[in-house]
């Protein structure tokens, strides 16, 4: 029982990351009709926004301490972040400690900017091209973005801590009368889950209750008609792309304490999120979210040792297996519409 609750919790968490990326992918696909293979890279760049902010905050000047020596026997250089000088050490420390949540503020404009540049500079020219061309050019872009990040930050994972206030775990078990430590879950993961729910809700609310959102939804349903209405679709496309990029970026920022970011993390998520999008049904936002959580939870269950011992290797293939079954039973995914992406 406890283990099932735990796996549901981990599944929800994994699912929120899939759902956030898939949401952006679907938004882009549904409105712009573009298959964006660089979406995983946007997630990765988001994560590196957090790294960058963390490094910026730690930007230091060097004080030479004659009393200590470094590994080569030279006087030791101690780096003092400028922020300590400005804010005083306690506050400076706190700011650095909170750099991951603070990075949200930093990442939103950066990601929107990157999204807008990407759309204006590249994606725009691919609206009329075949999906294969779109996949290729965005795949090429993903490689380029990834390599640029690697050039600056190296290939190894970079540790990013959650604020110390969120370190540790919450004991659910005690609440409902289980043994102590039987259902514990890290605070930060709860934060992540809550955060993604907020973002998902915000995106849906935005689409549901604003005029802008209505046009976008209309565009997703029937692009040609909206074009005929004389609404300036181009500008809206750009904004939608920016939003999708920001959603992916934020998913990345908040994920850094869970998964130490490395330059390749985008590719790992890309394939899975594509499976998620397709299982959800191309072009369906609720489908993407639903499939994200569904596959996250399934993956968690498949990782339970009871399951793995019964069917060896199932934990490695469960997502693909489920995707295959769903696609064969429901040709257009869980909530897909007819005719989308079938040519």
């Amino acid at each position: 029982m406890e283990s099932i609750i735990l796996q549901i919790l981990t599944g929800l968490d994994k699912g929120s990351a899939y759902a956030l990326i898939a949401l952006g992918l679907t938004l882009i696909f549904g409105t712009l009709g573009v298959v964006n293979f660089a979406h995983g890279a946007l997630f990765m760049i988001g994560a590196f926004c957090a790294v960058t902010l963390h490094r910026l905050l730690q930007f230091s000047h060097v004080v030479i301490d004659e009393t200590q020596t470094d590994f080569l026997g030279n006087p030791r250089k101690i780096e003092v972040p400028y922020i300590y000088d400005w804010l005083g050490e306690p506050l400076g420390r706190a700011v650095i400690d909170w750099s991951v949540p603070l990075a949200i503020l930093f990442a939103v404009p950066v990601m929107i900017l990157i999204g807008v540049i990407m759309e204006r500079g590249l994606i725009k020219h691919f609206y009329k091209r075949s999906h294969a061309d779109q996949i290729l050019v965005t795949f090429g872009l993903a490689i380029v973005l990834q390599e640029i990040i690697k050039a600056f930050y190296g290939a190894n994972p970079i540790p990013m801590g959650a604020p110390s206030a969120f370190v540790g775990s919450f004991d659910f078990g005690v609440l409902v009368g289980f043994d102590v430590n039987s259902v514990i879950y890290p605070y930060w993961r709860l934060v992540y889950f809550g955060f993604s729910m907020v973002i998902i809700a915000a995106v849906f609310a935005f689409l549901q209750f604003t005029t802008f959102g209505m046009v976008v939804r209309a565009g997703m349903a029937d692009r040609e008609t909206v074009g005929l209405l004389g609404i300036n679709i181009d500008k809206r496309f750009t904004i939608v792309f920016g939003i999708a990029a920001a959603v992916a970026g934020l998913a990345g920022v908040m994920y850094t304490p869970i998964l130490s970011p490395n330059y390749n993390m985008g590719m790992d998520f890309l394939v899975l999120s594509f499976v998620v999008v397709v299982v959800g049904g191309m072009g369906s936002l609720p489908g993407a979210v639903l499939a994200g959580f569904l596959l996250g939870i399934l993956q968690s269950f498949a990782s339970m040792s009871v399951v793995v011992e019964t069917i060896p290797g199932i934990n490695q293939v469960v997502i693909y297996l489920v995707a295959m079954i769903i696609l064969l039973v429901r040709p257009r995914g869980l909530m897909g519409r007819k005719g989308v992406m079938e040519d």
Partner: protein
Amino acid sequence: MLGLTRKDTILFLIVIAMVICAPVLLNPFPSNSALAQFNAGYPDLMQRFLIFGIFAIGFNILFGLTGYLSFGHAAFLGAGSYAGVWMFKLLSMNVLPAILVSILVAGVFSVLIGFVSLRRSGIYFSILTLAFAQMSYALAYSVLTPITNGETGLQLSLNDPRILDGVAAADGSLPVANFFGVEMRDSLDVALGGWSFTFNAGYYLCAVFMILAFYIAIRIFRSPFGMMLRAVKSNQQRMSYTGLNPRPYTLAAFVISGMFAGLAGGLMVAMDPLAGAERMQWTRSGEVVLMTILGGMGTLIGPVLGAGLIKYLENILSKINDNVLHQWFSFMPDGLENVIVTLIHPFVGKGWHLTLGLMFMAVVIFLPGGLVQGGQKIAALLRRKKADPNTVKQPAE
């Protein structure tokens, strides 16, 4: 000739000539010059050109003709490779049975995957094939280790049964893949002036298969079957209402391209008897997609060019390190030398992926038809310069 039209015959003869002369053509720089870095005429790379050429030619029969974008063809390459190594281990070091069984196993495997995946089209098909390939990869890497030897990859060992060849060589070294006694690594080195050329037996075996594969591809392209495949891509609705069943046509194309991939896998292990699980990863499938598009999808020669270009970059660019750069630009004043090296540095050596990514983008943006289209544009430009500017543009073949 050979039942081909004049134009195709010329193309075919050119390809044959290029393949035969490749050991010379690919080594244009004297082996001691600084530019020797760019020589590609060594057996391993030349074999890879041909093997991946075969892989891409086959993939193009599916993708280029029917438009079905498979992200799972690496699974057939891998299946063929494993089958090949198992033939070496169990039967004989002769490459012929290994290659034939590779083709067969990949064929059977592709019938299974194709039958299921082709129930869907568009991106749904792509994701289904991707799912199959990723599952094959994940299982080959872990659970199927008894068959695949997991991470290390399946290789020969001294205590393999090899029922036809009997026990391993007397001196305790591993036996060598051969074609009725001709060892795949046998070669003829010719030093001519500062140049040296290597004519390798394995390469020429690959060449025979590649030429055969290319010939089959031409025949398929020009056959009624090929026309039907193009019809699948163009308009499936019309096709059904014309009395044609698209499913067996696409399945046949899928299986043919899977068998080409199996042949490529078999040749890979014939040249170098090791089959690793990474061969099945989706990025490998992505690679063959890129080769096909880079060269020009739906064209005969395009995939071969694309395969060559990508393998060339991978093998040559990744070996250019800073030392080599400094060596090249050492004639410059030190300051300038360092600036130039710093500028080039991110694009070579460990940064070769960056160059690759930029190149894809450039090709897709500016040359949607790939290198073949680039060639046609240049040809058209030259023709226009010579002839009347109002010459009618020929539709691209």
